[in-house]
């Protein structure tokens, strides 16, 4: 095993992409090819590379350097988000955001870090036979990851005005709320986590696991969409893909990689799609099913006091009073949008709209995220994906509770008005109105603006091939040398933000691949 060669921290990574590829065929051979360079793919690639394996990460999105992070959302959507930020469920009422760039969703995420909650681990052990997934046994993996990635509880200076409103409201109501942990080092408080951290303080895969894996010899191909996993019989032997110019769409090179083992870590929507395209069939018919979206709504409020919500860390605090089973199972996290996004959450147009927009310095916002059952699915007709997901009655009931609690938090903190994200914004002015307004909402498709930041669960892990797609070691049942290592593994939804869980699962899969 060769010692790592530390890369120049400020030089571009030596990524092969459409701008520098030579010839029209890239043909490579490696121990392990990893599809996707996000939370799962990059973590696994680093673990394998530092154990001496030759690794190639293949990434569909662009290699965008932080110096090109413009802090302008429409531009960053186009550069770094799946479908340019336009991905939705089939009904079109839930925007499903995912990163699509070297580093994947970690580049654009809110940096909030939670260990996997015990309630989820208990289900995974009891229902899916993942017997070694106990809080105690996973603790050393989380500890190592947290040290590597600079995870810490936000200090006082990382609590923005927006998060302070959340904390104040919860304190007035006696509801549990506190600063969140984040994987950020020396936060510059720019407030642009979701646009990509332009000063490399967020410890996304772009500045951690990807360069670290490369320091251990891993290679990265960007602009390269993997079309198929190749098989000999039931053994995965490599991948084929296309490298395209991201600006013109022109194919620059065909990509053909032979590998001893193939790991798919393309995220919970794209992983099943790639496996469908590769004609992978699972015994229980669960591939692409059991999708949870962990849907969220943005609740906004016009406060008496000036909040300047866009200044400071993107996410400072959370309210976890309702997280546990039996307590409602929803969660609040602060997060203030830029004006063009906020405008679509406030009264629709005209004088009322203008007056409310002028209150921008007084506006506070919080996302309410709700726990959901794994009732969605991904399908593919050979050309077009479909993400079929609707709120069930249970999720609707939970959402009503969440909207009511969110309104109460802001009103308790002194809000003049609270706005619920119906298409043209529903206004609540007093605690007395909350019940009536919320019970009058239909919550039928198209009546609420929702966002999913945390899709998960489409290739679930478990001990029983009849109920799961992937075994406890990360290998796809019924195939050899084919693994999954991303958010699609999560057997049931976790209510808390999932990135740490994805890192942990990928690290475990890597350990199993290394025979540990």
């Amino acid at each position, binding site marked *: 095993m060769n010692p790592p060669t530390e890369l120049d921290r400020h030089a571009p990574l030596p990524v092969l992409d459409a701008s520098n590829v030579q010839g029209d065929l890239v043909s490579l051979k490696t121990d392990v090819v990893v599809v996707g360079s996000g939370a799962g793919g990059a973590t696994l690639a680093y673990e394998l590379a530092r154990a001496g394996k030759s690794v190639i990460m293949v990434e569909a999105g662009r290699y965008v350097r932080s110096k090109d992070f413009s802090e302008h959302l429409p531009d960053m959507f*186009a550069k770094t988000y799946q479908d*340019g930020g*336009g991905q939705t469920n089939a009904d079109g009422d839930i925007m499903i955001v995912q990163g699509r760039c070297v580093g994947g969703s970690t580049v654009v995420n809110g940096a909030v870090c939670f260990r996997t909650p015990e309630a989820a681990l208990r289900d995974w052990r009891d229902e899916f036979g993942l017997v070694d997934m106990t809080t105690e046994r996973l603790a050393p993996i989380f500890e190592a990851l947290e040290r590597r990635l600079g995870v810490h509880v936000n200090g006082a200076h990382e609590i923005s005005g927006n998060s302070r409103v959340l904390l104040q409201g919860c304190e007035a109501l006696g509801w549990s709320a506190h600063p969140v942990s984040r994987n950020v080092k020396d936060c510059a408080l*720019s407030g642009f986590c979701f646009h990509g951290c332009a000063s490399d303080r967020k410890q996304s895969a772009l500045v951690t696991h990807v*360069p670290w894996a490369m320091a251990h010899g891993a290679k990265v191909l960007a602009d390269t969409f993997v079309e198929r996993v190749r098989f000999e019989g039931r053994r995965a032997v490599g991948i084929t893909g296309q490298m395209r110019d991201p*600006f013109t769409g022109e194919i620059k090179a065909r990509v053909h990689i032979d590998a001893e083992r193939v790991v798919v870590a393309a995220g919970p929507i794209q992983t099943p799609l790639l496996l469908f395209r590769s004609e992978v069939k699972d015994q229980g018919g669960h591939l692409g099913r059991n999708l949870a979206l962990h849907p969220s709504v943005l609740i906004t409020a016009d406060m008496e006091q000036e909040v300047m919500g866009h200044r400071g860390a993107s996410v400072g605090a959370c309210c976890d009073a309702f997280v546990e089973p039996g307590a409602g199972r929803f969660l609040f996290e602060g997060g203030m949008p830029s004006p063009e996004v906020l405008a679509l959450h406030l009264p629709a*147009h005209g004088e009322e709209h203008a007056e409310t927009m002028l209150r921008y310095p007084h506006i506070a916002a919080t996302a309410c995220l709700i726990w959901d059952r794994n009732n969605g699915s991904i399908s593919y007709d050979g050309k077009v994906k479909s993400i079929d997901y609707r709120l069930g009655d249970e999720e609707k009931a939970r959402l009503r509770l969440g909207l009511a609690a969110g309104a109460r938090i802001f009103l308790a903190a002194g809000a003049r008005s609270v706005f619920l994200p119906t298409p043209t914004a529903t206004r609540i002015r007093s605690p007395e109105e909350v019940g009536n307004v919320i019970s009058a909402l239909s919550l039928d498709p198209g009546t609420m603006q929702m966002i999913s930041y945390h899709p998960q669960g489409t290739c679930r892990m478990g001990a029983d091939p009849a109920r799961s797609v992937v075994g406890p070691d990360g290998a796809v049942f019924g195939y050899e040398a084919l693994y999954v290592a991303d958010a699609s593994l999560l057997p049931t939804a976790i209510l808390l933000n999932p990135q740490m869980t994805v890192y942990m699962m990928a690290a475990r899969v890597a350990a199993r691949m290394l025979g540990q």
Partner: protein
Amino acid sequence: MDAACAHGGAAWVRIGPRGLRTLTAADASAYGPLVSETPQAPHDPSLEGALRRTLQPWTRRRVIVGAGLAGLTVLLGFRACAPRVSTEARPGLPSLTGTQLAIFERLFALMIPTRLGALVPVANVPVLANADAAVARLTPEVRLLLQRAMLAFDLGAIVTSGEGTRFINLGDDAAAAYLSQWQHGGEIRRAAYGGMRQVVMLSYYSDPAAWVPLSYDGPVTESRGIVRLGHAPLPEV
């Protein structure tokens, strides 16, 4: 109310799927797959996605849409409803049709009223240029959806505004009342309203010229001289 106009409008509303072209899956596929699994084309996918979402009822249903709408309205006597404002295409704004420009001009004034003086006047923000640039980056399919929704919005006023004329000809109060009808109307009208509103809000509020009265700082890393840290050093664990 002008009889020919009323008849024309009513005919359009009633003929519906039989008399006018409807948008079918075949139409849509002529412009390429709805969401291709191949790498993204060089369009502006953010507005594209938002509009695709909002205008979805216009694709999902067999909606009255008019590639033939304009022609038909002429046949039915729309000439009597000639625009009272310019519907000429404008140099420097190649992507919006003349009618769209006229509609957007009214919409900006109605949706973001700046006469109270506190918001930056719409005239001081390059809203039409921004809208034109945004529309230029849409796929042909979504661009056409938006165009059709806007045309239906404009012409629908002949029948339902009570003034017997197009939206772009309406006085301020009638135009505001008509816009509110679409905001609170059925699914199809709400979708058209939502799509137009998205373009209007994006074109105004994403422009730095509009940010000062909002106290929104915009990008800060360069202006504050925040130092880039580069890749993190190799970890010990």
